[in-house]
């Protein structure tokens, strides 16, 4: 029996498709998420909007907080480490989290490198804003990708931009002749072998999820329409006025995104969404998506 192979890592990502991964900060929120039908939870000390508001250096969560969430639910528990912080990642692996998010939402620990994710038994998800970034993370061993969007804003526009960009770049790759792929790999800043593989297969070798600013059932459905295979919802649920109801509604929306009547039903009477911040109005230093490209 061979544990933690690349196939089992991508396999778990495959099983999370069509699902919602919800940020939670304690066992009570984790239970609300599980009861609402979340496919997994992300264990955090602060949701992105709080990190944004409070400032300071954002680090991996206290192990006791993660363990309390692991005890509370049976669905997979993910946790975030700082970009390039392989020791935070080792700590999360020792805690046996089910997935590690090497995340731009936390303050990067290495300004030039990401974690060598092949060296870990636990699968990793990483953020990306375009195809080059996506392929660099896959080369490092990521088993799942998500858009970066602009976390903690409640504004879905950046996730939409990233989804559309990756889709357009994938389509462009499919139309290139073999002799154009070397130049394309250089333009993308991605390994040639991966570029060739993606050009031949017409899709990424790992699942592609959406994250960053999703706050409503319609936001989640829009991301699915644009090619996302599942969604992460960070601040959008537990900073809204009725988290259990909004959580259930977003779960329904991801399953039934092709059915506008079901979306209307899911969107009805949810109370107030998180207030949020317009992403285009953020100062450059307040943007998280540029971290660790």
């Amino acid at each position, binding site marked *: 029996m061979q544990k933690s192979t690349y196939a*089992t890592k991508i396999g778990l990502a*495959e099983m999370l498709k*069509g699902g919602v991964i919800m940020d939670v900060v304690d066992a009570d929120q984790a239970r609300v998420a599980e009861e609402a039908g979340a496919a997994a939870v992300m264990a955090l000390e602060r949701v992105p909007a709080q990190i944004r508001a409070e400032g300071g250096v954002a680090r991996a969560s206290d192990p006791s907080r993660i363990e309390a969430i692991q005890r509370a639910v049976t669905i997979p528990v993910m946790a975030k480490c700082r970009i390039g912080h392989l020791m935070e990642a080792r700590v999360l692996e020792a805690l046996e989290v089910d997935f590690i998010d090497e995340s731009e939402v936390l303050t990067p620990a290495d300004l030039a490198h990401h974690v060598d994710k092949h060296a870990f038994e636990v699968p990793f998800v990483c953020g990306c804003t375009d195809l080059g970034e996506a392929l660099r993370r896959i080369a490092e061993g990521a088993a799942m990708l998500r858009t970066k969007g602009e976390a903690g804003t409640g504004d879905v526009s950046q996730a939409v931009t990233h989804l559309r960009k990756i889709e357009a770049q994938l389509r462009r790759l499919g139309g290139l002749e073999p002799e154009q792929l070397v130049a394309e790999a250089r333009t993308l800043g991605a390994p040639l072998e991966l570029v060739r593989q993606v050009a031949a297969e017409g899709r990424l070798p790992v699942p592609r999820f959406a994250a960053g600013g999703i706050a409503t059932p319609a936001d989640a459905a829009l991301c699915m329409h644009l090619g996302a295979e599942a969604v992460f919802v960070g601040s959008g649920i537990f900073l809204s006025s009725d988290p259990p109801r909004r959580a259930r509604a977003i779960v329904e929306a991801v399953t*039934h995104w092709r059915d506008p009547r079901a979306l209307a039903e899911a969107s009805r009477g949810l109370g107030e969404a998180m207030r949020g911040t317009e992403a285009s109005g953020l100062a450059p230093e307040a943007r998280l998506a540029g971290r660790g490209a």
Partner: protein
Amino acid sequence: MRVGVLALQGGVAPHVAAARALGHDAVELRRAADARGVEGLVLPGGESTAQRRLLAAQPGLRDAIDRLARWGAPVLATCAGLVLIAREVDGGPGTLGWLDVAVRRNGWGRQRDSAEAVADDGAPLVLIRAPRIVRVGPAVEVVRALAGEPVLVRQGALVGATYHPELTADLRVHRAVFGDARAEAGAGADVQ
């Protein structure tokens, strides 16, 4: 055959691809209306708690697949799907209860214990936060085992797997459950 793949949450696409590779007409089931004309059923892997909640919100769909199973339509349930159709789950009653087995969810542990393995009969297995079958009813046949423990079982037209045959290139399980429409159409038997 028209094979309906329950598509509330989880690894739907590999089952759709496997059914189509065998020449079947595969459809995704999200609503009761989607089940019209369906003759075979797949319950895919995913998160069983998420699938259970989404199924509870669709009583019409639940009735439709319940009827299919009781009529004796061929059913393949993998991983979380097996959890949904098991009679007993973690010592309590299961959701659909069609298959007379007891399972323990995440029986091997967390994701770090997910593994690739080779069954006692040589078949490749991919186990992802897999359930374990801890009791098998008298009408249930153990088709495949790993170190003596059942990983693939059959009760009439119902087949349940703790692992993911859909994540390997091996189509034998899907073919055993639904048949090979291409072979029947004289298109040859080069399915693997």
